[in-house]
């Protein structure tokens, strides 16, 4: 065993990068579920975002344009889900699963010409002075813009849900859509907006995978990240702060276990491999002992006549 070969600074820096895709997808899904919609299509929207972002970034040479298109692509796909569930009143679970299958298929169709191409590098945001601070500099201040955007989004969602009128309306719609409707709020409109936001976030998360973390396009490259994001929202009791904690835990332990393996730690590999899931679930389950519960109208179909 040689723990000294693990560089804690590099480890923490790659923790933050590794957790960003999950964080983005999960914070989007959190808003969707707080509005009372269960969208199981996160995986499909992520991978669609991954290829949209990748294709645009390759063609324009600008990763920024890629991320914008990834958000639009994810949102466009999610609007399909919105049309099915909010207008055609289809079952949320079935529509969400269909969206995942559709997204996976669509992305491999769109991605056919992009296998083996390298995307333009996403510049790191080296903040002068701050990134020169020893230890803290490389860990906190030398990432790309998307990492900070993801953190800002978490803060914005938290603040919005807790302190603003818009957040209150969103939560009302999610807790009891009949009551919200009786008060005159546009339940369908609020939900469609939430779904589109969730789709855009998932798309950004996917693009972060294909443009920064891997970076290349491979069919099926999200390989289940969307499902982990979905589970994370539940284990985080629909709270923004805990989603951040969960994503960091999951990303952190995933990276740590790989490093421990490479360093030859004498813990059986099977335990190391399951550790990210185990640790994340344990911590979040213990934290959710405060009787937080799911939004009251989660997954229920709303129609004004009922």
């Amino acid at each position, binding site marked *: 065993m040689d723990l000294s*070969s*693990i*560089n804690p600074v*590099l*480890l923490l820096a*790659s923790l933050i990068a*590794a957790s960003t*895709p999950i964080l983005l997808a999960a914070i989007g899904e959190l808003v969707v579920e707080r509005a009372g919609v269960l969208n199981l299509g996160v995986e499909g929207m992520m991978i669609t975002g991954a290829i949209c972002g990748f294709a645009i970034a390759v063609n324009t040479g600008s990763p920024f344009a890629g991320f914008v298109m990834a958000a639009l692509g994810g949102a466009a796909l999610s609007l399909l889900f919105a049309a099915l569930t909010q207008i055609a009143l289809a079952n949320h679970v079935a529509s969400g699963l269909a969206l995942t299958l559709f997204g996976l298929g669509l992305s*491999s169709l769109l*991605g*056919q010409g992009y*296998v*083996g*191409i*390298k995307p333009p590098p996403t510049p790191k945001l080296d903040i002068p002075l701050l990134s020169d601070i020893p230890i803290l500099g490389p860990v906190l201040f030398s990432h790309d813009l998307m990492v900070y955007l993801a953190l800002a989004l978490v803060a914005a969602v938290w603040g919005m849900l807790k302190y603003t009128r818009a957040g209150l309306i969103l939560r009302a719609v999610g807790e009891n859509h009949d009551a919200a409707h009786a008060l005159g709020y546009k339940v369908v409109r609020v939900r469609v907006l939430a779904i589109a936001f969730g789709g855009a976030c998932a798309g950004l998360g996917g693009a972060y*995978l294909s443009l920064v*973390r*891997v*970076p*290349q396009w*491979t*069919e*099926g*490259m*999200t*390989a*289940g*990240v969307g499902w982990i994001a979905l589970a994370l929202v539940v284990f985080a009791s629909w709270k923004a702060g805990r989603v951040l904690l969960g994503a960091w835990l999951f990303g952190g332990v*995933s*990276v740590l276990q*790989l*490093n421990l*393996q*490479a*360093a*030859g730690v*004498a813990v*059986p*590999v*099977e335990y190391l*491999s399951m550790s990210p899931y185990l640790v994340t679930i344990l911590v979040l389950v213990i934290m959710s002992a405060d009787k937080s519960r799911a939004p009251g109208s989660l997954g229920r179909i709303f129609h004004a006549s009922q």
Partner: protein
Amino acid sequence: MTLKTLLTGAVLALGLTSTIALAQDDKTKVGFIYVGPIGDGGWTYEHDKGRLAIEEHFGDKVETIYRESVSEGADASRAITQMALSGADLIFTTSFGFMDATVSVAEKFPDVKFEHATGYKTAPNLATYSARFYEGRAIQGHIAGKMTKSNIVGYIASYPIPEVIRGINAAFIHARKVNPDVQFKIIWAYTWFDPAKEADAATALIEQGADVILQHTDSTAPQAAAEKAGGVVTFGQASDMAEYKPFPRVSSIIDNWAPYYIARTQAVIDGTWETQQVWHGIKEGMVEIGEITDAVPADVREEALAMKAAIASGEYHPFTGPLKKQDGSDWLAEGETADDGTLLGMDFYVEGLEGDIPQ
């Protein structure tokens, strides 16, 4: 009531059309079950190239079908059963983890021929086939031992099965032979295909000083990670991965399944198909060595090519004694070569490797 009638009608109609389809079925139907997507750029991509080669070779006489991204487990037997029910005459299941599912489905469909890649269980209608990837690994190990400056070689392993362990041993033996100081750091990814995880594993290895990365996972993500880090050597796995030439990818192992697939399809058409256990290597052309690029010094390239020629002619076996097991006990005496039985069931590291194989 009406719905019921409608449904019954639909079922009847379906049944009718499928009988008609069966009656008219004179084409040979060949099915493939893949563990990853056909665009993974590695393992599944090469199998699918074999499928396309069948289509090209036989034209209208043969129809091929495939299912990609089938997970190893309960889902596999469902997918294989479905394929057998859809009228396939020959089914290739192309991952080690499909073994038990293939065996159980083969029992239920005695008239359908099954071929399972990299496994060891056979039946009258179930054959196995695999390639001697370890021959290619030996050449990679030689190049890796010569190319590393930090003397740390990173190895991204998938699952602790004999095929993967054989690869690690073959690479390590030949790396040590040319560089006594070389060390292997091994990460078990527990996946065949997960680009993000593969990239993370490569990054972890590079951060811990590895400047050569060998992979036994299917995607090109480690190549991209190595390229991003700079100065790290990689090898294409299962497919040429030529888009990363000439550096970081300096050579590759290419699995060429096409000739085998065509021969076996022909055997089914001719009615001469019999169960067998095939294990082909460089000699038969099932394992190919991708171009060794100019990033490798000329003398190292010559040595690697000489080793390839010696393996192909049967003059040299990558597992030739004296070799000891990791615990120091004797395995092969001077000049002795490993027999196929031991290799197929390999569950131990050779001397010098650190760490334990997950059980």
